[in-house]
């Protein structure tokens, strides 16, 4: 699953959103790393709708323009949770090792050393998702 797909699904977990709200939510939740272009977003939304990961919840007209609200399907929820589990397991490979090393060094009486684990979302610089 691409990072864009992951954050779009994550953005929709709290309820139906329209296109621009998805962009904003994905940006917030990724700490600014995922900055979806509008063309890219709608391409992803169409593809994810075809794949059954999301569906149109309802439509409304704002300032004379239609606006679709998307919501995540059960399949989409399962997919994003599975991906989150996979990412957590992958992160644990590094974080648990770092924790064990830290405990080992403390037991040996050496001065405490800070070890960097997996960088949490939002701590890095801006990455643009195409």
């Amino acid at each position, binding site marked *: 699953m691409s990072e864009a797909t992951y954050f779009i699904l994550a953005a929709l977990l709290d309820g139906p959103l329209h296109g*621009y709200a998805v962009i904003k939510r994905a940006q917030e939740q990724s700490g600014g790393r995922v900055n979806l272009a*509008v063309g890219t977003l709608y391409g992803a939304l169409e593809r994810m709708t075809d794949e059954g990961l999301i569906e149109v919840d309802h439509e409304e007209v704002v300032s004379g323009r239609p606006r679709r609200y998307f919501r995540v399907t059960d399949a989409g929820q399962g997919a994003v949770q599975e991906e989150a589990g996979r990412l957590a397991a992958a992160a644990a490979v590094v974080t648990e090792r770092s924790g064990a090393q830290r405990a080992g060094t403390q037991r040996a009486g050496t001065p405490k050393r800070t070890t960097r684990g997996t960088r949490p979302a939002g701590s890095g610089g801006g990455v643009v998702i195409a």
Partner: protein
Amino acid sequence: MTTGDLSERRSWAERCYRVMLLGYPREYRRRHGGELLGTLLEAHPSRRLPSVRESVHLLDAGLLTRLRSRPAGVPAWASGLQLGLLLLVLVRAGTMLGHVTTVQQPEAVILLPSLLVVVALLLGRMGSAAVLAAIAAVAGTSQALASSGGHGTDVLGGLFASRTFEASWALNFWLSPGLTQYWVVAAGSAVIALNRRTRGPLPRRSWYWLTVLLAQVALTVGNNLLLPAGVPANHRPPSLPGAAVGLPVLPLIVTVGFLLLALRATVVIGDPRWAVAAGVYLIPVAVSAAVLAVGMPSAVATLGDQLPAVLLAAGCAVALRRRAPRRTES
């Protein structure tokens, strides 16, 4: 910034976005164009002109949406095969029409079926296309038996059509993509027409495809007017005008552009249609390159001879690679 300034900026940006939205298929624009426009203006409320990044992604998304739109109920292989065959006949018919106006005049028995094959393929009438292509193939081969073939520069890969070798007729047949093209079209159309899953006409293709034929006509006419009659494309004197020297490069650029587009569509969308179309389109020149390598090992291999075969192999590999995960998932 006053409300008037903001409104003026928005109207400029809106016009630009509307132009860029033309990259999307008409039906998609009709259904979702207003929504996209609203989101674009909401995301960039104070911009006078669209950003480069947003513009590139919008144009790219429009192109991918066009490439993704596939007629319902038609298998991907049949759709790709139809597209590849259509490109072959558009280029071939364009070359023939170009020759009619200048040096060579193909016989009506070859020209008429060639043009009708284009119409049949555009209408999705694969049975008719098979019969007409077979007539054109038989007529073309018979004519080639009686006299040596001419030369020409085809858009999209037929660049390799002109060769002069002192070899057997059979070898020359396989070395002439212009001759093998209609056999490929006849065989491919027959496969689709006889397949159980694709019985009945395929959906119609856009008449805009005829622009490929017109471009080929223009290229052939230009080529024939600029080049001295009877001089093959690869034996030009150095004193030719710049346009005559640059003209043969144009089809190569278009060919490579088309193949890269097909590769991107296959990789990004995961749809094998475009790789199939590119592969089918390259069959005649790939056969020619393979026969040249096997039958005439003493001939100097050029990039032009080997490139189609390499691209064909790459296209097939990508298509197979994309299909493999789907098979395991289902």
